[in-house]
């Protein structure tokens, strides 16, 4: 089927994830003809996240979206857990600002959220077709003019590739991002159902409050990465994120899926999920290379947004990708709206997309955290230091049968000059983020 020129869409969006739906929502709100093609049974069917979305920076881009959004719990308590082999140290942060509205972040389940977000985009006038995989993009005279899906050729003034981390579409248009395994992580998790009353009791939460916990150290068997736990309405999302580069090159190797079982069996975790029922196991790649791993963002007739463009970042305490996906989808839409006004979809006109991003929090963050991945890839952080910290705590708390050693020598035993000296390069690295 070849469409006539007047049935050409203003924009075809590949992928109904956060980036794609944000673009479609924004375009449709301006009365543009937009088609979203999504390969899953429904939007969200293929999408995995850890589970916390920071809303502060994107609230204004979608002003009427948040009040009814099916988010899980607002994050009211932050905790970091340093895990040794058989002990751990927890640092918990509570702040009154976390309790105040508007809340800065929420736990989220994408199966629920993306499906709902797609309906909002449809209400604005977007057409969303699921169960449809885009197999190719159509390039004529060097410019992208449409896509091939289910054997049909669908034409548009511009294509927005929001097809996630693997982004075959961007690749086909020559907009490849890095394929270095060191720039990617694998994230995998379980959703474990727990009765809300039990959950609130265990995590010390009131009705809508949620907790976010991050784990570093033995959870990843010393590999670059960490664990996470987010409380949802009636479940927890429990999982791990591991840098793929380290898994491929570093010895000793670890049995990756087994790490999650070990994590669940830790006494710190098992008591939190006791009686809970795992209802889903999922995995997904994360582009975490930041600005160094990004490719070109546009060409004649095409824009790339979200994970497809590499808009995900590891800033140490957390992986952030969702708000960048939403913001980049939004700015891609603005660039298309601008191109339509000029009736010019060339790279030169679409370049305004990059300017919008540069002027926004998106590129500011990516520039500020340019070094974060390299800084964080410091093996001592995932094995040696966690053991060191819990070792000090153990000795401080220990009450031996005989006399107790004074505090200073106890600490000093662990933190000799050599140890302190070895921390200098680490501190220098850390100053970059």
């Amino acid at each position, binding site marked *: 089927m070849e469409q006539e020129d007047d049935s050409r869409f203003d924009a075809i969006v590949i992928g109904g994830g956060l980036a794609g739906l944000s673009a479609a929502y924004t375009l449709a709100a301006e009365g543009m003809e937009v088609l979203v093609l999504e*390969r899953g*049974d429904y939007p969200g*069917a293929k999408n995995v996240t850890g589970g916390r979305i920071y809303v502060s920076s994107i609230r204004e881009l979608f002003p009427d979206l948040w009040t009814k959004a099916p988010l899980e719990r607002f994050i009211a308590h932050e905790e970091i857990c340093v895990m040794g082999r058989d002990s751990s140290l927890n640092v918990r942060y509570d702040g009154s600002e976390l309790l105040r509205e508007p809340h800065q972040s929420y736990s989220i389940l994408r199966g629920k959220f993306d499906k709902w977000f797609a309906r909002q985009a449809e209400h604005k006038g977007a057409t969303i077709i699921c169960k449809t995989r885009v197999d190719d993009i159509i390039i004529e005279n060097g410019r992208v003019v449409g896509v091939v899906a289910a054997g049909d050729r669908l034409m548009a003034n511009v294509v927005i590739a929001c097809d996630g981390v693997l982004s075959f579409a961007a690749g086909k248009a020559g907009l490849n991002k890095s394929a270095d395994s060191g720039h990617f992580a694998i994230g995998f998790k379980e959703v474990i159902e727990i009765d809300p009353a039990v959950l609130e009791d265990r995590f010390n939460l009131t009705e809508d409050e949620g907790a976010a916990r991050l784990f570093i150290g033995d959870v990843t068997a010393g590999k670059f990465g960490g664990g996470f736990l987010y409380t949802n309405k009636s479940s927890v999302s429990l999982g791990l994120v591991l840098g793929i580069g380290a898994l491929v090159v570093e010895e000793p190797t670890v049995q990756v899926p087994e790490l999650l079982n070990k994590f669940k069996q830790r006494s710190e975790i098992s008591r939190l999920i006791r009686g809970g029922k*795992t209802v889903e196991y*999922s*995995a997904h790649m994360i582009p975490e290379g930041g600005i160094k791993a990004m490719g070109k963002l546009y060409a004649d007739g095409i824009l790339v947004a979200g994970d497809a463009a590499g808009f995900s970042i590891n800033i140490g305490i957390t992986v952030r990708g969702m708000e960048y996906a939403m913001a980049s989808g939004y700015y891609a839409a603005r660039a298309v709206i601008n191109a339509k006004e000029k009736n010019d979809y060339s790279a030169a006109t679409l370049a305004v997309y990059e300017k919008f991003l540069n002027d926004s929090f998106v590129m500011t963050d990516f520039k500020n955290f340019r070094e974060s991945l390299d800084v964080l890839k410091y093996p001592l952080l995932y094995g040696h230091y966690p053991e060191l910290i819990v070792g000090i705590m153990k000795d401080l708390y220990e009450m031996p049968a005989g006399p107790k050693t004074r505090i200073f020598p106890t600490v000093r035993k662990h933190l000799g000059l050599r140890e302190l000296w070895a921390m200098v390069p680490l501190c220098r690295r850390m100053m970059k983020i």
Partner: protein
Amino acid sequence: MSDLKAKLGLDVFKEDKAFPIAIKKGLERDPRLKKMVLICPAGLYGEDESGKIALSADGCLECGTCLLVCGADILDWQYPRGGAGVQFRFG
């Protein structure tokens, strides 16, 4: 591993008769594939006594890690056709 099978049993999968990931003929002993025996989150890669790696079809989570690690010169890799493959209800 049986525990992993049980976990994958919780997920919703829609069948695609033509499983879209395959190891290219003659490359079954490539060291990059060996890494996947440990890394694949669904535990779908296995090694036999002769050192040959095989990939079993059911339970792929479509994470893409094997494509990144092995590359398109070793694996034929594409997403299942629209509407097929894993369908996350929670994500």
